[in-house]
Structure formats: structure tokens, C-alpha cells
């Protein structure tokens, strides 16, 4: 009898849920639907300070919140453009050395616990804890600590009054739950259960991760900022590019993150799938090691001379190579920055493509052509190895084109194709002549201090080519300490010009990725640093929903 009652109740509830779902669909509510994303690589650590792969960052950005969210213009000076997130509002101290963040009292962790100021204090301490070994440690160097004024007010303290202080705490730091993490040693967090089953405050909550297979997020219906419009986002790991594309074409997936030019050509005339170009803050270059790999204290026998580097830059037809590799989908690099960066300047003076001038320059430096047409000086051939990760088809093609173009100038290039771990090992050890590399920067020019500044040139730093110029360092520092956005940009552009003139690299292309997406998915604006930033606002109109969209969130599993 009791069992029958239970069954009847369950049936009524299911009927009610179905009715509600039907009403929702009939009323044209934007809420509902499932987005399936086919992605080639799996996530790594689902903990924001340790997330390294793009998928981990995508997931962490949905599950965790920042105190404030950067605007779509990616303005990093002061708090202009930032909108409230976990902090409803904030007050600057008179000396700008601290900011009091007032936590939204409605904010809850996905386990139901309220968000408290002590979570902010704990998070800041964790990001700065050397035992955690977070890659974000340099980005939060100016943050001193956080204190608790009351349960809903956290005060973040800075070492120095700097224009990007707000950006440092709001953009770089995602707030973590103290009550779930305080008992885990920081050095154990990478392998902790939490890093596989995160609990955050975002509009999506973590649901499930089958390593190497799929990862699922579901809408947090009780979220303080309102639920995500989509019911769920499912990432399916499809290591083969053709399989991912076939999944999209057959309707098994809704979004495929990386397409090749020939795949894009197949989309013409397809009413169900369209191209999905999205910006990024990545730029690719051929970097020259400025130090002798065998004796790092000495300059590189070829690339130690800036004039040789400039000659090589002039010998390369960057636009021709771009057209060859990307057809019409490429974007030429205007300098040592991606064009989406706020401080990017498309009028920077780069060494022009001029093979006659390049040849004359090399001749004048004593690198003369021999009987075989190849150049040498004092018996040493003008030859070097270009290291390339074989996993990147684009970079391998670029390497072949570079090899061919430099051969015509009398320079021998050996292509050193290698697996990525080997490539990284050589980069870390500074054991290379030249390499084809790609950097991903964040919205602030601050990242350049690590990648191109003298501070990162030491072994163990990120400046693998070992470039060091005090003028560049000073201009970059001026850019980062200027409170006037126009002046900051002007300093940054001057710094980029110095870098371009010194030619520690040939700036090849901006990484503009084109994916493909089902036409039933209605996207929100795509932000240059993270296309997924407004994923919670994406919708699937009720009339275009399919079976997997209609499950709803309350559906019981059999």
C-alpha cells in the first residue's frame, strides 16, 4: 500500500515536472537544453590556481566566481568596466593600498554553505602559498594579503599602489571554499578529490568527470546570479579531429572547438552547422636563442647578433606563409602581441620583407655565399636547427616554409621535429638554436615581464630566448605603473617597438581559432581572452530543442 502511494506520488511529481517543462517550452523560456562540446584534450586539475589546460580553465570559469568580472573591453587599469560578481560592491582605501569587498549575502557554495569573507582571506593566502606552486603566483605578487572586517566584508591589501591592483585580485583570483579546503595540505591539493570534484559558486555546478571520456556541468538553479540558461554542458573528449567533426555534422555534438580549413569548406551550404570563429590572446613566433646553448654565459654564435636576426626576419615572407598555411583564415602578427590585446598597435615598425636587403646585410656581416650557394663565415656555416613540436601541424608546415625561404638566402635550417615533452625539455634547458613557439598572454601587458623581460631571462624563468634589454624593461614598467590608460598604452607600444627592433623573434601569426557550432545554439558575446566567459547566457530556443535538450534537470535516472 505504502509502495503504491510512493509510486503514485512519484508519478504525480514526474507528471508535474513534465507539465512544467511543457509549459516552459510553450512559454518560450530561454532556460533548458544541453550543449555538447567535442574537445580534443581532457581537463587536468579542476582547481583554479592549478588549472593548466584550456579545458580546465573553461570548466573552472563556469564553476567558480571571481570577486568582480572584467568587462568585454578587457580594461585592466583601475576598476573601470568590472562588474560585480561575488562582491556586490567594493570600496577603495584613500591610499589605494587596500580594497574592501562586500560579499553578496545571497551567494552560496554549491553545497549550500554561504560564502564568507573568510573564504576570500583563505583563497588569497592559498594562491600565495609557495607550497601550492601555483603558476599564478607572479600575477598575484602585488597582493599582500586579505583580512576579514566582518563575515561579509573582506579587505584585500596590496604591497604597492599600482594601476592593476584591482585587476590582480579580481581577474587572477577565483574564490575557493575554505570549509572544504582548509584541511587539505596545499601540496596535496593537485591530487586531491576536490580537484576532481570541485565545489564553487558559479552559475554551473560540477556534475561528473569520466577521465578521458566526458565531463558534465549542470545549471545551478539556486544561484545568487540566476541560473544558467542551459541545463547542462557536456564536454566529450574526442582525440581525433575527424571524429569530433563527424560528431558535429551528425548532430552528436553541438560545438567543435578546432576545425581545419578543409573542414570549414565542408560547412558551406550546411544549414545545421556554421563556422564559429573566436578570438584568443595567443600569438606565434619563431624565437631565437640569444645565448649559446653549450655555454649560456656567451652570446649565441649566430643569433647573438641582432643584425643577423633582422636579416632573417627580412628574408621571411610572413604574409605568403600565412596564406599558404591558413588560406584566408589566418591573421598576420603585427608585433609581439595578439591583436585582441588592448595595448596592441597595428602600426608597429617590423623588419620588412626584403630579401635583397637581407642578403646585403648578411654579406656585410661576413656571412658570404660559398661555392654551394650556402653562407659561411670563418669556416662556420650559417646553419641552425629549428625545433618544432610535431603535434602542431601548423607549426610543422611553417617550419618547412621557413626552411625553404632561408635556403634561398643561403641559410641552412634543419627542422628538429619532436614530441611536445621533448620540445619543452629543450626550452626549459635553453638547449635550442631557434624554435617555433606560441605564447598565450592575459589582458594585461604584465605578462610580458615574464615572457620577454629581464626578470624571466634567468634559467627557470619563462623568457626562454633569454632576451634582456633594460630599455624594454623600463618602458614596460612605466606602462604597468601608469594610471592613465592612454599613457599606459603609449608606454606599452614603445616597449613593443623596442622588442620588435631587437628582433629576438620573428612574429608570425595570431592564433585565431575557428570552430564549428550547431545553428540551434544561440551564443552570447565572445570575449577575447575566454570565448566561454558568457556561456551561462547561451540559449537553445525551445522550438529548436532535440531529445537531449528535453531531459530537464529534475529527471530521475532509472
Amino acid at each position, binding site marked *: 500500500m505504502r509502495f503504491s502511494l510512493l509510486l503514485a506520488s512519484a508519478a504525480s511529481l514526474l507528471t508535474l515536472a513534465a507539465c512544467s517543462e511543457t509549459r516552459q517550452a510553450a512559454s518560450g523560456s530561454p532556460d533548458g537544453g544541453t550543449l555538447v562540446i567535442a574537445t580534443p584534450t581532457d581537463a587536468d586539475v579542476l582547481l583554479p590556481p592549478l588549472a593548466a589546460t584550456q579545458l580546465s580553465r573553461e570548466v573552472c570559469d563556469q564553476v567558480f566566481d571571481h570577486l568582480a568580472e572584467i568587462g568585454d573591453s578587457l580594461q585592466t587599469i583601475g576598476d573601470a568596466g568590472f562588474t560585480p560578481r561575488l562582491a556586490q560592491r567594493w570600496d577603495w582605501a584613500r591610499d589605494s593600498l587596500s580594497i574592501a569587498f562586500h560579499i553578496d549575502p545571497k551567494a552560496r557554495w554549491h553545497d549550500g554553505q554561504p560564502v564568507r569573507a573568510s573564504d576570500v582571506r583563505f583563497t588569497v593566502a592559498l594562491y600565495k602559498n609557495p607550497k601550492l606552486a601555483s603558476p599564478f603566483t607572479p600575477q598575484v605578487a602585488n597582493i599582500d594579503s586579505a583580512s576579514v572586517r566582518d563575515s561579509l566584508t573582506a579587505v584585500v591589501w596590496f604591497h604597492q599602489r599600482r594601476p592593476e591592483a584591482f585587476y590582480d585580485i579580481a581577474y587572477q583570483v577565483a574564490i575557493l571554499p575554505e570549509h572544504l579546503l582548509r584541511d587539505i595540505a596545499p601540496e596535496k591539493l593537485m591530487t586531491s578529490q576536490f580537484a576532481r570534484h570541485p565545489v564553487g559558486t558559479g552559475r554551473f555546478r560540477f556534475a561528473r568527470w569520466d577521465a578521458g571520456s566526458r565531463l558534465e556541468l549542470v545549471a545551478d538553479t539556486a544561484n545568487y546570479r540566476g541560473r544558467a540558461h542551459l541545463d547542462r554542458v557536456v564536454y566529450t573528449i574526442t*582525440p581525433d579531429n575527424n571524429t569530433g567533426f*563527424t560528431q558535429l555534422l551528425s548532430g*552528436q555534438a553541438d560545438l567543435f572547438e578546432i576545425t581545419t580549413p578543409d573542414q570549414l569548406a565542408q560547412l558551406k551550404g550546411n544549414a545545421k552547422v556554421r563556422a564559429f570563429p573566436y578570438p584568443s590572446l595567443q600569438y606565434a613566433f619563431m624565437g631565437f636563442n640569444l645565448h649559446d646553448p653549450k655555454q649560456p654565459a656567451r652570446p649565441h654564435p649566430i643569433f647573438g647578433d641582432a643584425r643577423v636576426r633582422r636579416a632573417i626576419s627580412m628574408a621571411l615572407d610572413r604574409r605568403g606563409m600565412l596564406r599558404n598555411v591558413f588560406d584566408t583564415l589566418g591573421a598576420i602578427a603585427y608585433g609581439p602581441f595578439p591583436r585582441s590585446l588592448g595595448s596592441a598597435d597595428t602600426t608597429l615598425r617590423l623588419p620588412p620583407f626584403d630579401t635583397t636587403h637581407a642578403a646585403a646585410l648578411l654579406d656585410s656581416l661576413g656571412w658570404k655565399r660559398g661555392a654551394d650557394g650556402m653562407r659561411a663565415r670563418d669556416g662556420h656555416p650559417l646553419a641552425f636547427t629549428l625545433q618544432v613540436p610535431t603535434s602542431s601541424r601548423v607549426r610543422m608546415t611553417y617550419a618547412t616554409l621557413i626552411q625553404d625561404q632561408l635556403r634561398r638566402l643561403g641559410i641552412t635550417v634543419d627542422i628538429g621535429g619532436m614530441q611536445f615533452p621533448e620540445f619543452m*625539455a629543450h626550452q626549459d634547458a635553453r638547449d635550442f638554436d631557434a624554435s617555433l613557439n606560441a605564447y598565450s598572454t592575459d589582458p594585461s601587458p604584465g605578462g610580458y615581464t615574464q615572457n620577454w623581460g629581464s626578470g624571466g631571462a634567468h634559467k627557470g624563468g*619563462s623568457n626562454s630566448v633569454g632576451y634582456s634589454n633594460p630599455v624594454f624593461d623600463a618602458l614596460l614598467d612605466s606602462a604597468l605603473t601608469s594610471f592613465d590608460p592612454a599613457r599606459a598604452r603609449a608606454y606599452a607600444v614603445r616597449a613593443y617597438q623596442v622588442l620588435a627592433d631587437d628582433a629576438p623573434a620573428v612574429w608570425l601569426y595570431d592564433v585565431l581559432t575557428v570552430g564549428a557550432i550547431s545553428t540551434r545554439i544561440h551564443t552570447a558575446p565572445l570575449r577575447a581572452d575566454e570565448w566561454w566567459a558568457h556561456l551561462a547566457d547561451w540559449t537553445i530556443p525551445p522550438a529548436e530543442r532535440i531529445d537531449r535538450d528535453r531531459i530537464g534537470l529534475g529527471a530521475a535516472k532509472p
Partner: protein
Amino acid sequence: MARRLLARLGQAAVVLWVVLSAVFLLIHAAPGDPFSFDAPNISPAIRAQWRAAFGYDRPLGEQYVRYLSSALHGDLGYSHSMHEPVRDALAAALPRTLLLMGVALALSFALGVWLALVEVRYAGTWRARLTHRVALFFYSLPDFWLALVMLMAFAYWLPLFPAGGIVDPVLHDYMSPGRALLDLLRHLVLPALTLTLLSAAAILRYQRSELLEVLPMDFVRTARAKGLDEHTVLRRHVLRNALLPVITLLGLAFPALLGGALFVEKVFAWPGMGYLAASAIDARDYPLVLASVVVGSCMVIIGNLAADVLYRLADPRLRRQ
């Protein structure tokens, strides 16, 4: 028999240790380590800190002793490419590969033996020639190419089956048990069929030559002289005697049950042992590489032992020896 079995087990333990040690040295000799992955924004200093945290900065001998000691205590370590304990990664991948390879091996042996019988039974006719050529065609195809063609043909041009994955990533959990099983089988068809087509040809050719060797023997002539029809002669007398060497083939194929098929698993997004091991090597995921090798070696050893035992059970002459 028991003493012989024990001796073989002792040899197996030595083989396992030698293989494990060799792979340990080889994978550590390869440039890079588990923290050399593609993330240019992570500085070498941070990578060095992570290495130190997991003991990868220690001398190789110390790492070796620590690994052996942990492994003997049942701790296979932490997988840096799967981001979970190696034990969990294996527990997830093993059943998937067992299912795929089990079905594919059963189908390919059944198909291979049956086609060999057809070829022998209809020797000299168009049927035999067609069987031979079709088998040769599939035998000569690269596995990744056939997998891609199968995927495009039956998941896109003629959308009968799903384009990869083990189950429907969204709806599977909400299906009744019957529909969930059907869903699993639908996802299994293309990868299993691809592997079957690729390996059935090899079995066919092997089995055919065995059948042809047995066919002229006296006992076959006697069977025919007794008035048995050709079908019965082939099935009862020729095939039973010609099946013995196939046991060897089965023993050799046994490791493939867990070794998986790398390209087929990759194309069909079937995260089994083959793909797991290949990804682990690419990512220099030392603990997972070593665990995969241990599993693979165990299967080789077990496969050979099983083949030996089966041989003796199947062939009375060997039992008498």
C-alpha cells in the same frame, strides 16, 4: 603438470621484472617528463617545483627503488595524464577494452575460420576467389584509414551508428536498462566491426593453410570412404584437427584483449587500454606507462600459459609426452 606450471610462473615473474626495469629505464631516458606538457605560461620554475613534489628530481636509482617498493605494496602511483590514481585509470579503461577486444576477437576468429572453410570447400570456384580477394583487401588496409572510412560511412553519410564514444554522453544515464544496453551495443558496432574486418583476414589465411595441410591426410580419405558428405568431413574431421594451431594464434591474440587497438580506439573515441598507454607515453606519464606495461606483460604470459595448457588438453599426443 603442477611443477611445470610453477616453473613457468617463476620464469614469468623474472620476465615481468626484466620488462618493467627495461621500460622504466627507457621511458626515463626519453626527453621530457610528466610536467613537460603544452602550457607555455607555466614557468620552468613552477614545473621544477611540481617535479620535486612527486619525486621526479631524485636520482634514477632512488626513483626505481621507490617505484618497485610502492608497486609491490599495491600502490601503482598517480597518473598525471588522467589526473587520478593509476589504479582508477586502469579500472576504468580495462573493462572498455575487454568488451571491445573480446567482441572483436570472438567475431574475427569466428569469421576467419568460417571464411577459411568456405575457401577450402569451394576451392577453385568464384566464391573462393572472391573470399580470398576480399580478405586480402581488408588485410592490406591501414587500421586508422579503415576506421575513418567506417566512421564517415556509417555515422555521417549513412547515419546508422553513433560517431564514436562508448555510450550517448547525455541520454545514456536516463535510459531504461534495456535501452542502455542497446545504446552500448550501437556504439560498439563500428569499432568492433573495424577490428574484426582487419584481423579476420589474418586468421582466415592461417586457418586456410592449416586446413589445406590436413586435407590430404589418410584419416580424411578414410572419412570420405566411409561415405560422409564433404560438409561433415570438413567440419568434423578436417577442422577439428586444423584448429590446434589456431590455439597458438589465440594465445598470441590474448594480450590484445588488454593492449587494445590504439588507432581504432582513438578514432572512435573509445578510451581503452591502447589509447591510455599511447597517451601515457606521449605525456611521459611514468606510472601509467609502467602499469600498462605490467598489464600487457601479464597478458602475454597468461596467454602463452593458457595456449600451452589448451594445447595439452586438445592434443592427446602432447598429454602422453
